[in-house]
């Protein structure tokens, strides 16, 4: 299947609107998605209903197919559009992933690293927003250490805001790439059992995954010591267990969360060793999941802490593939947000 991704008509664009060079033909195949409602911003995984989430994943799949095997892995789709990577917090992986995604869509990418203690409080957030606004950013990819900062930003800029991880709140594109990876290996997600293990309390990855995977029909089980589960977790669309072994039996996938060593000081668990014994994924536990089951980790890993090197690099581990899928999924998100698609437009191409 080939793909045609037409940029939204823009008067000033010129050559870009001539069509996606190098991608030939259109393929209006596949079912027209139902009730697809791409939000204006992607701030939370809950911004995506099931039809929309599936549409994002299908779009990613088509993008992957469109560029696979090509020498020049670049589409002209977002030529002339400006994507700003606004990172108030260090995250080389996520920033690079978004940067590659935007560049493969031919967007102009500006990396705006606003990290630094000299930035006094968050007045800078509003000032930064106005700066971006003045520069005409079409999309702002925002990583911030404060929960909710991308949502606040979205009120101050006209461009589309993508939450690239905010505090201990959400990281919706991580959940999308995880869902994409799961779908590739497991087919659909309906009824699939996914076990998410680790520091749920502080994990934006866990929050976004619980929301997205449950939206997509999976059954999510959270496993953590009680100290690393939020008090309000009972209201989440997920099961909760303190016992990793029993949760893993027959699971379709297990997702290990990074445990930050600084949690030690908060008395969340007594020692790394005890954490590792109770909640680490080793070979014995790995063998408890279903034969077709896969192992995920959003990275960066603490090898020997939450996951043994043998499991991280062993059979069923899709950790490296997650990184590649991250680029593809982020291309889909950028494309869908910036091309301003509607239900009608979607039926035509992607």
């Amino acid at each position, binding site marked *: 299947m080939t793909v045609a991704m037409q940029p939204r008509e823009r008067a000033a664009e010129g050559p870009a609107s001539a069509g996606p060079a190098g991608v030939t033909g259109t393929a209006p195949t596949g079912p027209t998605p139902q009730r697809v409602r791409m939000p204006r911003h992607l701030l939370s995984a809950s911004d995506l209903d099931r039809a929309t989430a599936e549409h994002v994943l299908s779009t990613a799949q088509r993008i992957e197919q469109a560029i696979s095997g090509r020498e020049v892995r670049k589409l002209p789709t977002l030529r002339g559009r400006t994507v700003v990577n606004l990172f108030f917090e260090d995250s080389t992986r996520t920033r690079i992933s978004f940067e590659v995604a935007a560049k493969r869509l031919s967007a102009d990418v500006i990396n705006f690293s606003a990290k630094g203690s000299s930035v006094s409080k968050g007045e800078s957030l509003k000032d930064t927003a106005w700066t971006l606004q003045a520069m005409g950013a079409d999309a702002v990819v925002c990583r911030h250490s404060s929960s*909710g900062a991308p*949502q606040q930003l979205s009120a101050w800029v006209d461009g589309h805001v993508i939450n690239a991880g905010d505090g201990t709140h959400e990281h919706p594109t991580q959940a999308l790439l995880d869902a994409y990876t799961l779908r590739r290996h497991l087919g659909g997600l309906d009824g699939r059992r996914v076990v998410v293990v680790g520091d749920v309390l502080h994990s934006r990855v866990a929050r976004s995954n619980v929301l997205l995977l449950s939206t997509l029909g999976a059954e999510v089980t959270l496993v953590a010591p009680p100290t690393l589960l939020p*008090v*309000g977790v009972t209201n*989440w669309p997920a099961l909760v267990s303190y016992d990793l072994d029993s949760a893993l039996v027959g699971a379709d996938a297990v997702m290990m969360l990074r445990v930050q060593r600084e949690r030690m000081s908060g008395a969340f668990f007594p020692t790394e060793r005890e954490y590792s014994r109770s909640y680490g994924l080793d070979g014995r536990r790995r063998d408890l999941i279903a034969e077709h089951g896969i192992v995920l980790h959003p990275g960066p890993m603490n090898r020997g802490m939450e996951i043994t090197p043998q499991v991280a690099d062993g059979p069923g581990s899709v950790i490296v593939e997650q990184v590649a899928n991250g680029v593809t999924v982020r291309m889909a998100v950028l494309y869908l947000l910036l091309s301003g698609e509607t239900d009608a437009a979607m039926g035509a191409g992607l």
Partner: protein
Amino acid sequence: MSTELRPVLIRGAAPYGEDPLDLLLADGVIADMGPSTVTDARAVDAEIVDGTGLVVLPGLVDLHTHLREPGREDAETVETGSRAAALGGYTAVFAMPNTDPTADTAGVVEQVYRLGREVGLVDVHPIGAVTVGRKGERLAELAAMANSAARVRIFSDDGDCVSDPLLMRRALEYVKAFDGLIAQHAQEPRLTEGAQMHEGIVSARLGMTGWPAVAEEAIIARDCLLTDHVGSRLHVCHLSTAGSVDVVAAAKKRGTTVTAEVTPHHLLLTDERAVGYDPVFKVNPPLRTASDIGALRRALADGVIDIVATDHAPHASQDKETEWDNASPGMLGLQTALSVVIETMVRSGLLDWRGVARVMSETPARIGGLRDQGRPLTVGEPATVVLIDPQAVWTVDADALASLSCNTPYAGMQLPGRVVATYLRGRATVSAAVLVGG
């Protein structure tokens, strides 16, 4: 001074919302009152105020106000805060000491006291800090503040908890010498490290560090026991949880000399307001749940909670229009408090107007040791009263409030009840809902 005042004859207004009467305010006192036009000679020259449909209450007293002066005159001053207070129906406010410099010496409390007198719109009574710089390390010179011109009787490290149990014990003991009391900001610091909002279902969803109810309840329980032990007086600031209500109820039942306040915002707003991450809803203690609100309202009605106090906390826009984590906690309250109490307590039938007078005027004046505020509406008492239109409905406009800051959580909301006039010892500070003088 008061002799130069023109007398005021309020016709047909209803003291405590009961039978309409005429009230003559002259020489700073309620000179006469009765069911028909008073015959007092001073009524002849009096300014006539049509009180038809209006409720008369003793002037409101706020035991918990932040006036920000000295130090943050960009957020509020004694003058602008006094205006907000008068427009809100207040005739006395107690100013919290978390200023810069901290009100922990006789010099600073006298400065605030003097500024209040110069403005003259409300009686401003400084609260002194319990510890030097509110650092929780050693006692400030409490007796010096008590013996100063400001005659400080309430001491608080509000904004921070006097968490050291030994220091709290000493403070409670020490203020007995001059009939003082400690107003505690009940917040166990270790249980609330990095806390951003009420710990519960909403904080779990929003990914914000939780402020658990137990961090308030544990301190209140401890302090009630300490108060029993040393035989002192404790006042609990901004009580916010159902569990705290139970703790205070149990303490009062066994005879602890404890009083407690609730803020208007904790009577009306829930933690769901944090959805959207608008820091105007960030406050400490945080907004709680609907069931907490229910418990607080009942406790205020049945007297477990003694008073409503605003915790009026102005913040400059740069301290609010920021990431939630970095935003300063607190919200405006002086001009909306009465309306919120009408909305939550009067309209629901939990309090009548005598009840409102009790929780917003009489009891706070008694706790604060004020002899000429919160007095009964009878002849010879100070003409320190407020006229309220209970039928009025108004829409809160943040920019139209008298405070220098705009951080009201009620912006755009319709609220019942409006202050028509405020009199401080017979002189109007607000007339026809507009500020007079000051």
